[in-house]
């Protein structure tokens, strides 16, 4: 099915199942421990053995030798694969320029250099520590992001946006701001570590793995193992989170596949938690210079944003300028992103890549600028809203309700009651502050396919290689199918994550739910057509309702149409170029937070959070809310504690486990509220839906940073905002 025009009135406007707060289809399996994650798929292949990965002890240089003799002689050891016995195995995609394994060159700390396979996990781990590796360290490495983006990044990069005359507008403005902000590298820290079981049958391989993008994975494995893609099967019905860490294949899967081929038995590999931060990928660190200019009425006249970010190769890094090009109005714009070549592990996508670090900085700048203009931060943002692409005013936003997000949020939060003098509100030992920030994230979509089968018992089975990374894909796809075929939700079952099923959008970039439900819709329409053909009538003359298909005065139970056989519909949704040519399709939000800052110690604690989201049709308010509050929690981490600390001598992230890399705990999150605006976006998909999973994270950290300033009068421009950065500036206790 081609989606070449904005959706008109359609069945989703009178939806009965889509839009309902239905509990997760797979929820009972998960809460009772019966949903088997990759490493626990004990039943899928017999004779599984354990591979334990070995990471490089240096950040840059060469391996001059690996002595495996002691490890080979260790109890239980079946085989060892070292990097020296393979040519370098690279990734498939330009935007993930990864070296999985192979060759003697070390590009980053904890790069996978071997895997030791043994009968038990403990034997493999013990033997892995017996490898003797000799290195020649390369001293000419760079692990430091310079103190200005101009010095850090490549010189004269192509601007991402250059509109009007920035320099002139900035020089002549009534009010200006010129500040530099930094955001640290962050680790995805999803609950389930990377894990894979691989088994070969001749030259065919199956990988039971934890991966967000099944088809990308299949292509990557084909290249890594030198077999045709059709010889590769990838299966991943459940993921314990990914946040982008599992968008691309990582070393666990490559090592498992190579080891399984070498030892001739199914091999399972998981990355130990202390290896994940440096072995896999992370959100890049950034340094961002932001320049804003406004007229005396507080309307922005110029926006300048220069970002530099660590990248191991040409691509990668956190492009913090992504939201800047479109979020706020201003006629004169100069936006530049420059990767800084550094020998840290390669940075790549982490939830809302670009927007997260970008809005962490930009939404502080907006707060500072509001203060300079003598305006309320909500009013200042409203004054600078745009309904068109500011770089190309002929292109409108398809459906943008940012102002309404701010207004609804301010009313619900009680924003007008807040104290406006920083450092002036106390509750016992705590200074109280409030903060706001805007949220912006595009609403991309991807081609997505599905197969639906109507079975003789009147049930519907949906099959797709779509993944459910804890987001609710099973449920919203099931809801969509039920809607289109007029069935109760209970009559639908959904099977996902297997490369044997039609290729879907996969989970990433908050495109998953919007694209995959559109794909299910396409497949269901194909099924309706197949049903019509069986009945010898036109599809348009049929009504699907309450488990029956009606034509004129005849009503047939759906299960009977096939006469004892399954009827199958399969199709993909393809999104036409109008979606990007004619409009900007994006999601919007506003975050409001209240924090307490301990007047003596500077401890910062969140008191309440409210998010308002404009994301088009909400497919399921329960799963959507979970996405939002999870993202808001991640934003608390980014604001107040998360930082992969770089050791600039040895070139690695030092705090590479969950004791050293802190993420929020329950006690950090006392109260969260989410309001979804009732909007629909006909430009987005036939369901008029957009994503929420990344939007929820955008801007959260800045709202918190702004609240800390409101509480204390201290402005922190370097994340995370921790007590050591404010303690000297606290008002006297």
């Amino acid at each position, binding site marked *: 099915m081609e989606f070449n025009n904005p959706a008109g009135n359609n069945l989703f406007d009178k939806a009965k199942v889509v839009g309902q707060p239905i509990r997760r289809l797979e929820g009972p399996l998960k809460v009772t421990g019966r949903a088997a994650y990759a490493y626990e798929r004990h039943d899928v292949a017999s004779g599984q053995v354990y591979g334990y990965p070995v990471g490089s002890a240096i950040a840059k240089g060469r391996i001059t030798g690996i002595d495996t003799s002691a490890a080979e002689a260790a109890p239980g050891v079946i085989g060892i694969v070292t990097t020296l016995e393979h040519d370098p195995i690279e990734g498939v995609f330009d935007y993930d320029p990864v070296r999985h394994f192979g060759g003697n060159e070390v590009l980053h700390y904890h790069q996978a250099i071997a895997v030791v396979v043994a009968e038990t996990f403990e034997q493999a781990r*013990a033997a892995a520590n017996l490898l003797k590796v000799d290195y020649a360290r390369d001293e000419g490495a760079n692990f430091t992001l310079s103190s200005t983006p101009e010095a850090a990044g490549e010189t004269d990069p192509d601007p991402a946006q250059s509109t009007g005359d920035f320099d002139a507008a900035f020089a002549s403005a009534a009010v200006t701001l010129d500040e530099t902000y930094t955001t640290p590298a962050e680790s995805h820290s999803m609950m389930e570590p990377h894990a894979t079981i691989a088994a070969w049958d001749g030259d065919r391989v199956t990988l039971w793995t934890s991966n967000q993008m099944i088809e990308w994975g299949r292509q990557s494995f084909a290249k890594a193992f030198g077999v045709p893609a059709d010889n590769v099967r990838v299966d991943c019905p459940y993921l314990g989170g990914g946040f982008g860490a599992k968008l691309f294949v990582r070393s666990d899967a490559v090592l498992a596949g190579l080891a399984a081929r070498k030892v001739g038995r199914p091999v399972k590999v998981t990355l130990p938690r*202390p290896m994940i931060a440096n072995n896999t990928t992370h959100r890049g660190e950034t340094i961002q210079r932001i320049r804003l200019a406004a007229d005396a009425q507080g309307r922005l006249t110029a926006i300048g944003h220069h970002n530099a970010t660590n990248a191991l190769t040409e691509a990668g890094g956190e492009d913090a300028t992504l939201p800047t090009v479109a979020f706020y109005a201003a006629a004169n714009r100069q936006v530049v992103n420059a990767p800084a070549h550094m020998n840290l592990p390669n940075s790549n996508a982490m939830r809302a890549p670009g927007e997260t670090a970008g809005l962490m900085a930009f939404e502080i700048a907006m707060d500072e600028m509001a203060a300079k203009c003598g305006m309320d931060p909500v009013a200042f943002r409203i004054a600078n809203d745009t309904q068109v692409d500011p770089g190309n005013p002929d292109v409108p936003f398809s459906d943008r309700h940012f102002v309404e997000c701010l207004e609804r949020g301010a009313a619900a939060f009680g924003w007008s009651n807040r104290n406006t003098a920083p450092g002036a509100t106390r509750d016992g030992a705590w200074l109280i502050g409030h903060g706001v920030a805007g949220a912006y994230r595009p609403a991309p979509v991807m081609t997505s396919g599905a197969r639906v089968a109507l079975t003789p018992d009147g049930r519907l089975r949906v099959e797709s290689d779509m993944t459910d990374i804890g987001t609710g894909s099973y449920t919203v796809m099931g809801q969509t199918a039920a809607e289109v075929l007029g069935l109760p939700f209970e009559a639908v079952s959904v099977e996902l994550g297997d490369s044997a099923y039609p290729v879907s959008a996969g989970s990433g970039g908050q495109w998953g739910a919007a694209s995959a439900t559109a794909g299910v819709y396409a497949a269901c329409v194909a099924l309706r057509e197949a049903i019509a053909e069986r009945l010898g009538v036109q599809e348009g003359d049929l009504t699907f309702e309450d488990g029956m298909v009606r034509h004129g005065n005849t009503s047939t139970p759906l299960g009977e149409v096939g006469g004892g056989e399954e009827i199958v519909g399969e199709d993909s949704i393809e999104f036409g170029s109008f979606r990007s040519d004619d409009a900007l399709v994006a999601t919007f939000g506003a975050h409001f937070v209240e924090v307490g800052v301990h007047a*003596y*110690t500077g401890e910062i604690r969140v008191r309440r959070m409210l998010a308002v989201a404009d994301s088009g049709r909400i497919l399921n308010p329960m799963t959507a809310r979970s996405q939002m509050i999870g993202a808001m929690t991640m934003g608390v981490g980014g604001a*107040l504690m998360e930082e992969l600390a770089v050791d600039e001598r*040895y070139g690695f992230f030092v705090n*590479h486990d969950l004791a050293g890399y802190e993420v*929020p*705990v329950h006690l950090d999150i006392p109260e969260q509220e989410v309001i979804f605006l009732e909007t629909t976006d006909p430009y987005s998909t036939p369901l008029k839906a957009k994503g929420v999973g990344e939007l929820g994270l955008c801007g959260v950290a800045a709202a918190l940073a702004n609240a800390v300033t409101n509480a204390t009068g201290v402005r922190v421009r370097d994340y995370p905002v921790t007590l050591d950065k404010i303690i000297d500036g606290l008002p006297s*206790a």
Partner: protein
Amino acid sequence: MRAFSYERATSPQHAAAQAAETGGKFIAGGTNLLDLMKLEIETPTHLIDVNGLGLDMIEDTADGGLRIGALVRNTDLAAHERVRRDYAVLTRALVAGASGQLRNKATTAGNLLQRTRCPYFYDTNMPCNKRNPGSGCAALEGFSRQLGIIGTSEACIATHPSDMAVAMRALDAVVETVNAAGETRSIPLEDFHLLPGDHPEVETVLGEDEFITAVTLPAPVGGRHFYHKVRDRSSYAFALVSVAAVVQPDGSGRVALGGVAPKPWRRAEADAALPNGASAVMSTLLDGANPTEDNAFKVRLSERTLAAVLAEAQE
């Protein structure tokens, strides 16, 4: 983790004797030892299980104090009626540590003997004098935000991470031991942990074959009890700085600091300055501090945290 053999001790003295004979390590709750073994930071070839020796009792002592068995779990100790009533600083410190699950396993002796959380100690690719004597200290010029500011040395700037021990230090606790020969001794907690000097790998005065049987607390000292633990998140994190304090109605009292030194940090002269306020206490208690750029804030944070406690004490 290296392969190891395992036995259950039959008595405290037997445990000590087996340690002397095998060079093995005692395992109590295992919450620290097993983690370190998995990373091969600790590599014992033999484990002596000391659970089930009847050392899990809390008893009154003749002088009105309390004798806490070495194997009493942190959860049970924190919940004990007399601890909550007479030694509240200890309960407060315990519940500020780790998580509920960990405290259910963690024991009194194991908690005192838990090892540092220095991130370089945890990465066996890095030089670390504590883990690998003579290899150097990667933390000294590295990422040291969490590490010590006083009592440290050029060889090691790690802190002792325990919360419980800070409260016990404020309470003048005494560690009781037995060795392979059956000899017992009582070691004031003040003397129990060693400063690193040139040998950060030696952390306590315990002999190789010395086994902790109990910790005793002297008779209660009254006063109001505080434990203020400062950290970036609300729970489940080690202290940046912690203050254990017992404050009497006349403003006198005791103060011990956690998160700043290789041992719970207390000085008698600093206690004496308590009636004069936080600044007076800290100028004595942290006299000689030698922080890194990363952790210099701990000096001011310590003072401000004590000020918070004293303000609360006056309410």
